[in-house]
Each structure stands twice: as C-alpha cells, then as structure tokens.
C-alpha cells in the first residue's frame, strides 16, 4: 500500500483550505485528482487517504470516485491518448483513427501498452468539433488527425519523445497533469503561454477584420442608470408601445395567427408530425397543443420570464415552511458515518465477511419478534 508523502498531505490541506471551513467535502474531486497524481490511478489506498483527510468513510469516497470517467481504476501509462469517436469526429474519420491506433498498439479501450507508456481510450465529445477529428494526449489537443499522424504521435511517445500538441501546452506525464487538475498552477516555464489560437477559432474574426466590420455605437462611458431611472424609462417605453399597439390594432390578429401555427408546420406536406412520419401506432395520448413534444418539454424545463417560478422570493412554498438547515444534513451524514465505520480491508463498510452472516442471524432472530416477522419471512420465502 502506498504511503502518501508529507508533500501530498500538505497539498491536501491546501486544497481543503480553498473551500468554506464547514464544507470540506467540496475538496473531494480535487483530492481524487491529487491521489491520482501520485499513483496514476485512484487505488484503494487513494480512496482511504481521501476518506481520512475529509473525515468520510471509504464507501462515500468510492461512490464518487467510480462515478467520474477521469478517475482511472487501474494503473495508467505515462500518456493517456483519447480519440474522439462522438458523432462529428466519428463521421470525419475519428473512428478509423481509433481503430488504427487500437490495432497498432495492440490494446483496446481503457487499456495500457505493456511498456507502460500509453493508455488508449475512445472519448466522447472533446469540445473541439471545428478541429475534428481530434485526439488528445493527456488532454492537450492534436487537431485534424488522420490514422498516419496519430500513429506517428504514439510512436514518438513510445520512443521517449514528446511531440508538440497542435494547441495547448507541451506535454507532461499524466501524473503531472493530475496535479494541475487538483488545482495547482502549471509550474513549467512557458507552458501557460504555449499554444496560440488555431485558425477555426478565429475564422469569423478574420472575416470581420478583412472587411473592416465592428459593432458600431460602443461607448465604454455609457452611464449605468439607477434602478429607479431604468424602471421609469421602461414604464414610458411600455406606454409608448401600448399607444402604438392601439394604433396598429387591426393588423394584430394576422400576426398572431402566423406565430401560432409556426410550430406545427415546419415541414410541409405529409410529414407534419413525428408520429405520422414514422407510421407509429404507439402514441395514444393526444398532445394538448400543437407544439412539438421536444419544445413543450423544453419550455417546462427551461421556463422563460413568462413562466411563474415556484420558489421565487415572495411566493409561498406550500409545504415545508422551514427550509432544511444545511447543518441537519451534515449532522445526519456524520451520524451515519460514525455508525458505519470503515471496514479496514479496502472494502466498503458493512461488506466484510462476517457482516452478511450477522445480518442473516438478525433476520432469523427478527422472525420471532413482533411486527417484522411476516415481512422477513416472506422475503426469505421469496429467495427460496
């Protein structure tokens, strides 16, 4: 088992100090990056370390560590090569890049080469679609890759070289990268300055520059109106608008009708609704309005100014007049943690060999007792 160094402990304290004193759990994600920086993955020892410094149990930490893709559960290589195979990169050739690399390196997704140099993975969208297909090495970008250039990059890495990413900083190892993810500055001289913008990021700007286009009327000294002034101006504008509306009244219905049917007639002829288009017989509930289901759901999920917000200040929340104090949750959790001490063998609490037996015995004993008897009996009956 790895013993974490005093340096790591000092860094852990520094991370925890970034968050409010009674909210140290917020430090968990950066702490998991920190233990990954030490070991190259989140090991049982790493989980135990995080649990110890935050006063959590290992099950609580393990539950978080296993949720996130970037926390690796097996030792990794020095370089994590991620190839985007999400739709856009995929159709532009990302899948061939991944397949070629996989064959060339002899490893599959989330596997590491025998020399311990490279871990390969296929990634979901890496937010660089205008540079697709892309791959990253320790999360720094190699843009517009094809199978040959990708193989060239991994060969150079395996030979001990460090090819320069298209954008982003010069490469470091995955462990060094994890220190940065834990929230520490990149100490390498010049690394922050590396990597200027690529052409796709600047395309619109270049066009505007070439044709001398800028947004007119920008005056940085425009005064900020006081709220009262702004409200007065708004009221005046509203009155003006209403006066104009009154004038234009006869034309209004036509505009309304146009706005109203816009939602239902985007496609014209036969494909008026998804149901009809697909010839489905499964939809038996008629939509209450002619807006598409996606739009209706979006409106419910993302209310705009016109939608009443249930708990906006000033509105009554019908149930639960006393908002739960954050302390309550914490105390309950602390009590739970105290009642479930870590098992001490790398397994989550309650998982040790004897626990199951004890539970069974308790269940047996419970059979005779009042109340719980029938339920337990039927449960065991069901198992047979």
């Amino acid at each position, binding site marked *: 088992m790895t013993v974490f160094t005093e340096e790591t402990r000092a860094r852990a304290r520094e991370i925890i100090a970034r968050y*409010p004193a009674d*909210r140290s759990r917020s430090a968990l994600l950066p702490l998991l990056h920190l233990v990954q920086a030490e070991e190259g993955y989140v090991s049982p020892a790493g989980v135990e370390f995080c649990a110890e410094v935050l006063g959590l149990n290992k099950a609580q930490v393990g539950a978080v560590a296993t*949720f996130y893709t970037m926390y690796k559960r097996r030792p990794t290589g020095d370089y994590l090569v991620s190839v985007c195979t999400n739709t856009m990169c995929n159709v532009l050739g990302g899948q061939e890049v991944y397949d070629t690399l996989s064959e060339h390196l002899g490893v599959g997704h989330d596997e590491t080469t025998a020399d311990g140099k490279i871990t390969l993975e296929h990634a979901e969208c890496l*937010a660089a679609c205008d540079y697709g297909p892309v791959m990253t090495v320790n999360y720094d970008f190699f843009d517009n890759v094809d199978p040959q250039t990708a193989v060239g990059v991994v060969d150079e890495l395996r030979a001990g070289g460090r090819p320069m990413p298209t954008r982003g900083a010069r490469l470091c190892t995955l462990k060094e990268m994890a220190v940065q993810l834990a929230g520490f500055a990149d100490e390498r001289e010049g690394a922050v300055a590396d990597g200027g913008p690529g052409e796709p990021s600047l395309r619109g700007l270049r066009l*505007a520059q070439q044709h001398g*286009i800028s947004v007119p009327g920008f005056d940085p000294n425009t005064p900020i109106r006081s709220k009262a002034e702004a409200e007065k101006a708004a009221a005046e504008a509203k009155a003006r608008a209403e006066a104009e509306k009154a004038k234009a009244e006869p034309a209004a219905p036509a505009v309304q009708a146009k706005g109203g049917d816009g939602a239902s007639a985007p496609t014209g002829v036969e494909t008026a609704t998804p149901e009809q288009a697909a010839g489905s017989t499964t939809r038996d509930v008629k939509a209450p309005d002619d807006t598409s289901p*996606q739009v209706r*759901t*979006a409106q419910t999920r993302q209310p705009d100014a016109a939608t009443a917000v249930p708990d906006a200040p000033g509105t009554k929340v019908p149930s639960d007049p006393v*908002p739960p104090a954050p302390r309550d949750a914490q105390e309950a959790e602390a009590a739970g943690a105290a009642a479930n001490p870590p098992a001490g063998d790398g397994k989550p609490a309650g998982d040790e060999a004897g626990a199951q037996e004890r539970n069974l015995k308790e269940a047996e004993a419970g059979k005779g007792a009042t109340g719980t008897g029938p339920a337990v009996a039927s449960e065991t009956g069901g198992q047979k």
Partner: protein
Amino acid sequence: MTTPRPETLAKLTPVLTKRWLSPDAWRIGTYEKLDGYAALRKALKAHPDDLIQLVKDSGLRGRGGAGFPTGLKWGFIPQGDGKPHYLVVNADEGEPGTCKDLPLMTYDPHSLVEGVIIASYAIRANRAYIYIRGEAVHAARRLRNAVQEAYAKGYLGRNILGSGFDLELVVHSGAGAYICGEETALLDSLEGFRGQPRLRPPFPATHGLYASPTVVNNVGTIASVPYIVLGGAEWWKTMGTEKSSGPMIYSLSGRIVNPGQYECSMGITLRELLELAGGMQPGHNLKFWTPGGSSTPLLTAEHLDVPLDFESVAAAGSILGTTATQIFSDQDCPVYATYRWLEFYHHESCGKCTPCREGNYWMVRVYRRILSGQGTYEDLDTLLDTCDNILGRSFCGLGDGATSSVTSSLQYFKQDYLDYIEGRTAPKLSEKTLVGAH
C-alpha cells in the same frame, strides 16, 4: 470561394471573441490595455441593484442552452436574508458539437474573471466558483493563471479596489461527467458528491450550493456582462432580435469549407452562416444539421432560412441550445449519427432515473440491430415508444435531449431507417465492430 455578400458580413458582431486576435490577451497587462477591468471599476461605483436592472434591460439570456433571462435569474436571489450567496460558473462544456467556451477561456480568460467579479458584486456573493470541465486542461491553466494575476492586482480578494467588496474565486476542475453541465448535478458535484441532478423545486436561486442562494450561469453569459456594463443595455440590444438580444458565438462544424467560431448577431440563418463559412465542401449537399448541439432536434435543408434565435428555432420544432451547428451532408447517415449520439447519452446517463438509464441502454441496442441489418419494422415503433417514455419523464434534461435526434431523424429520414431494415443499405455495423462495443 466567393466573398460573402456585404449584408451577410454585416451580421458579424465581434464582441466576446474580439480579443482572441491578440495572442497575449490572456495576460493581465494586455487585457487591461484592451478595456480590461474598466467595466469592473465602473460597476463597483454603481449600486448592485442597478447592475441587476442593467442586465435585465439588456435582455441578456443564458448562453448555456436554456436561454433563461439572466437579469431575472439574478433578481431571484433573496437579498438581506443573512445567508451566504454564491456565483457558480458552468464551464463544463461537453454537449456534442459545442466548442465556444473553451476557446473563450483559453484566449480571453480575464473577461470571464471580470464578469464573475461584477456578477458576484451584483448578487452580493463573496465566494464564486468556476466549475470547468476536467478535460479542458489548457483553458484551466490559463484561467488559473488569470485568477492568480487578478488576485495580485487587487481585483480579487479583500476590499476589491477599495470598494469594501470581498470575493474569493476558485477554479474547480471536474472529472469527466457530461451530466455535471446540468446545473443541479453541477452543484452536487461541487459539493463533493456524484454528479446527479436534484429535484426542483427548490431552485438554486434559494437552495443552491450548500443550500444557499446561488446563481449558476454559463461562461458566455458571464463573459457578456463586462461588455453590457461598458456599452450599456441599449447598445447591446442593437445586436440580435427583440427577444434574443446581443451577439452569439455560432460554432460551425462538419462538412463545410471553413468550420469554426463565428460570432454573429442573434437571428442569423444557417444559409447566411454557410455563406460566411465558404459553403458546403465540394461534393457534399446539406442533409441534416443540429441548431444547438446533439440535444436539439435535427433540422434539414428546408430550415436554411430559420432565424437562429430562441423563438424562431423553437417555432421550427427544435431548440436553439448552445448554437453548436453541426452540419452533415448527403454522404452522412442520419441513422448512424443518431446511434453515435445515443451511445453518448447511454454512457453519460447518471443512472439516477429509470427512463433515461434504461431507455438509452435499450435504444442503443435497437440501433445496433438496425445498423447491423437485422432491424424490423417494430423497432421503429419501439424507438418512438421508448422516446415517449423518456421525454418529459426523466429527472433532468439529459434524457429529453437523448430523444431529440431519435424522434427528429425518424420524422425526416424514416426512409433511411427503412433502407437498413429492407436491405437496401449495406449494414454499417458488422459483428466484428459490435464486439467490445461499450
């Protein structure tokens, strides 16, 4: 390549992206020379309520996809309630197709930092967090550097510029979970839990981070604030449409000559965007596209003239989303594209609610069957039925988003599905590619 017409070029509105042309704009010295932190000085002299009013007047709407009015959101924060307030910036950019926040944070990180300080001052928050996607390492480097520089110059910390306002700002890296872009999942993640969405109400405005009043805003939203403070609401509204004001960064990718970021007046059409981007690649004809990432229903060549603002895209049966315009041609298969997106939603579903967790799992399998040439007509009904059980019935928008491409591709491209089922299209997935598929 023909030059775009002057009236199309006039729709370019370089505002948020403008500093990207200066290679050193990420350094505080250069940033200050380019109007940097002027908005902060101006804002700190105003009353916080006046700033909220200013943002309301500007009509700024959230740039993260939902388009919620930003000033209204800030106004929901109860004042004088004795609780700490928080500002959390959602920098967990990961919606397939979306690629506007990463360049902004990499090339102009101080504009975000400055926006954070102004927004925090307006909502009376003394702590702010930028939750940045874990994989965005270079943007995080620049952002952490910018925060450090801002502290050194007295723009962050105690008594900022002598105003008596204190602010601590922490850049918090995520760890690879798309769901953390959902604001309540983000808050759970920031509190050190699995990133799973919370039931709403209560909304973050009253019970957000640490059960305290919290504003969660997208990077583009917060980075817009300094410009509104400087140029004023009226100037901001000279761009965009009446209900969707301001500039918007349109991210064009796919089968076009010049993919990239185009900051334009909101309400530009795809036809005009294609003109700016040099048109389709030779030999490719537009077949389908997403107006704002993979969670927005597909549109087709019929929708070239739909103004890309919140209202018009909704009227056309889709959602403006993040204005991540992914453009596919007649050489791309909508069935396969949808399958790949579903693989994504299946992988990223947090597992909290059954419709999304199980629905996406099974839909992926149905797609694999169709694409390997073993699909049946019933599969199409199964897909729609499954979507019906996910849309509006899942815990958060991730499940809803997953159904978008399924229902819209079935709406517009049913023939492509039938071609697989009836054997006219060769199977795209073989037994070999299915082995080891995750």
